[in-house]
């Protein structure tokens, strides 16, 4: 039988895609055909790190196979003198007679002259495809050398620069020149600049702004994915976003917050980043915010004074219901109750307006993915506008609770300094303050009520992860239907037909089994659900509490994994429940549950091993059961 010889090389290459270098090496020794394919695969992606074992052998091997290189990763460390010569040889066929001193490469940033290596752009001949992916990671390198190498690789489509904190001196930071990057790499599709030890020039940005006003429409760069640090635009200096005007093709952004000076930026401009992206990058499909980044999705406009008359009227009305003999005076302080009631009314009004889409300007029409990390500041207004406008939103992850401290929520538009000062510096809320707040439409953190509204609106969701907040039973109820019929009914979510992955937290008290029954039934409505995670929920998986409500809809045919069932196991229930799951959910392969040792006759019994040894449990179709120890 000679089957493998009939297989075309491209299919063999596909087989090799998941193999590690070790296995590829062994494949190279199998036969000539395999050798050819495996070698191409092995040498297409090379990591140069002089602290690796057998690094020298690798370098020797690569030097004779430069044509195969597609991706080079350079991990810099202290031994740069050795690597310098190797890099120049591998990337540019540059073998000068005397050893290269990396200090001799001049800093070209100011004068923008091309580096001495630029004429060697196609060093290996026109038939040899040029390098497409380049990654650099390090902190101790001489930046001039990095720049000389970097700016000569003009054919790149992917560039990753990482400047991790390695405890070195703080002065030696890498200067990122975005304009130069965009100009030098016309084919760049993916750019990532992360790490602590880099910064952006300020002078260049100012000059850029001036230039932009006068020249005509700019040619759009083809960059599609950009990972950068939020500090790029949050300082007090004039905006450094000039280059975003050329990034109209951007589809994906990832915003980090590792920049060392971030905390020291005294006067933040949190609207700047969101506004810039909204204005210049209409094709944006994916936003991933990692870490503590003030990213405002939605720009709240300032209400002109003629629109606040109805607010003033509302305030007057609220006050007059309480006042009897005193004349209504807008400047007087309100009682706590009045204030609370008024705030609530103003918020309701705002929600109503948002739902009608009136106050929102269109933003990110193509948005499909939104991922928010720790310390995010997603506001209620953002969330509701997202629900109303984002027709293609398929993935939303809000894994952490929203920041509650008052400082980020008190930041106003820079254009309204007087109001801002008055509003934030007064500790006693006067009516004037409330009206001003409303006029400036202060952002506020979202609540589960806003989430409920959002879930009624957003019908395209496929992946939803909302572990930053928990739903109580009251949060889930459809208040209007419940009021008319008298029995509680859970509000339907708009994404019931489309949702495939769900990770939420329900918090239903154990004293109300009917509530649990309703929630399980509600979960059952998701007809295409494949993955369910309820790890931190207080929701009891037991027949007395209605877990069979999960079979309400079509989920029996589609559910593939339950990452984590909520806690609460009685020993006899566990086995019965698992078998029930195995029998009713044809595709279920993964079941996760928490384990609690049972106390029988006053002693702890390890029932876990009995459970796992049970014949029926072993035979059932659920392949992976993982048990988390309490």
């Amino acid at each position, binding site marked *: 039988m000679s089957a493998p010889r009939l297989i075309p090389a491209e*299919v063999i290459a596909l087989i090799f895609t998941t193999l590690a270098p*070790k*296995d590829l090496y062994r494949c190279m020794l199998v036969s*000539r055909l395999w050798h050819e394919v495996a070698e191409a695969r092995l040498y297409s992606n090379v990591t140069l790190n002089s602290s690796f074992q057998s690094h020298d052998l690798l370098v020797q091997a690569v030097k004779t196979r430069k044509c195969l290189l597609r991706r080079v990763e350079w991990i810099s460390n202290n031994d740069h003198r050795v690597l310098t010569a190797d890099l120049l040889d591998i990337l540019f066929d540059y073998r000068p007679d005397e050893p290269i001193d990396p200090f001799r490469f001049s800093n070209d940033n100011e004068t923008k002259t091309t580096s001495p290596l630029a004429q060697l752009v196609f060093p290996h001949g026109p038939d040899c495809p040029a390098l497409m992916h380049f990654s650099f990671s390090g902190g101790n390198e001489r930046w001039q050398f990095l720049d000389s190498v970097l700016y000569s690789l003009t054919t790149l489509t992917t560039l990753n620069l990482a400047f991790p904190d390695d405890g070195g001196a703080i002065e030696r930071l890498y200067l990122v020149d975005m304009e130069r990057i965009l100009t030098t790499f016309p084919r760049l599709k993916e750019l990532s600049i992360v790490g602590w030890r880099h910064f952006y020039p300020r002078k260049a940005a100012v000059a850029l702004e001036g230039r932009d006003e006068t020249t005509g429409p700019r040619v759009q760069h083809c960059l599609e994915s950009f990972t950068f640090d939020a500090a790029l635009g949050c300082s007090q200096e004039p905006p450094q976003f000039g280059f975003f005007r050329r990034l109209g093709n951007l589809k994906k952004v990832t915003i980090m917050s590792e920049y060392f000076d971030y905390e020291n930026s005294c006067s933040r401009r949190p609207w700047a980043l969101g506004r810039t992206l909204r204005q210049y990058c209409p094709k944006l499909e994916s936003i991933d915010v990692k870490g503590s980044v003030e990213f405002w999705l939605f720009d709240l406009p300032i209400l002109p004074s003629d629109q606040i008359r109805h607010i003033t009227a509302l305030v007057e009305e609220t006050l007059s219901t309480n006042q009897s003999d005193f004349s209504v005076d807008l400047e007087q302080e309100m009682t706590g109750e009045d204030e609370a009631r008024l705030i609530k009314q103003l918020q309701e009004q705002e929600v109503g307006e948002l739902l009608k889409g009136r106050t929102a300007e269109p933003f990110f029409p193509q948005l499909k993915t939104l991922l928010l990390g720790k310390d995010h500041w997603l506001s209620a207004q953002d969330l509701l506008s997202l629900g109303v406008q984002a027709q293609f939103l398929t993935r939303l992850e809000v894994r952490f609770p929203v920041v509650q401290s008052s400082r980020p929520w008190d930041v106003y538009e820079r254009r309204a300094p007087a109001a801002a000062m008055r509003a934030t510096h007064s500790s006693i809320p006067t009516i004037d303050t409330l009206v001003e707040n409303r006029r400036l439409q202060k952002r506020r953190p979202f609540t589960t009520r806003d989430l409920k509204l959002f879930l009624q609106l957003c019908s395209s969701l496929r992946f939803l992860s909302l572990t930053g907040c928990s739903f109580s039973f009251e949060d889930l109820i459809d208040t209007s239907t419940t009021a008319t019929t008298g029995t509680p009914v859970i509000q339907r979510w708009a994404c019931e037909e489309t949702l495939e992955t769900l990770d939420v937290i329900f918090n239903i008290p154990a004293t109300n089994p009917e509530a649990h029954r309703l929630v399980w039934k509600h979960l059952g409505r998701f007809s295409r659900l494949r993955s369910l995670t309820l790890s931190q929920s207080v929701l009891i998986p037991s027949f007395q509490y209605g877990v069979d409500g999960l079979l309400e809809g079509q989920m029996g045919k589609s559910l593939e994994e339950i990452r984590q069932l909520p806690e609460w196991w009685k020993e006899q229930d566990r086995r019965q429940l698992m078998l029930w799951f195995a029998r009713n959910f044809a595709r279920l392969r993964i079941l996760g549950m928490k384990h609690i040792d049972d106390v029988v006759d006053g002693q702890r019994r390890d029932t876990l091993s009995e459970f796992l040894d049970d014949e029926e449990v072993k035979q059932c179709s659920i392949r992976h059961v993982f048990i988390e120890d309490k």
Partner: protein
Amino acid sequence: MTVILVSSDNQDFKVDKEVAERSILIKNMLEDVGESDSPIPLPNVTAAVLTKVIEYCEHHRNDPIQVPEETDDPRKRSNDIEEWDMKFMQVDQEMLFEIILAANYLDIKPLLDVGCKTVANIIKGKTPEEIRKAFNIVNDFTPEEEAQIKKENEWAEDR
């Protein structure tokens, strides 16, 4: 609606249109041909292999069509092969490679992926001699060539 597929050894297979369209090649053919009822010839696929391919497509008929940018879900990116697929791929080697070739020709990416992963799993961890034995491959290197290859590429053993 059903379509008729004809294998290289002239056997007819009636399948639902939805199932047949898991193959992009067939899907495109159907779009070009339009409303016509004529059977679709597949000269590169024998009946035995076609049976297996149809079995796969039937089982996965309801799977969402994988769009590259939407498989961003980290759970979907795992290298695990589904239970059913694993059992499905437990065939003799000749059939395994025939399925891969058929999936390549018919452009059924998920089946091609599963097939390639299955073969890759067979390769992993084996020495060259073991690999040759597993796939009945003849060693066409001279000993000098082998030594040379080892010398130059040995760095990869550590990665």
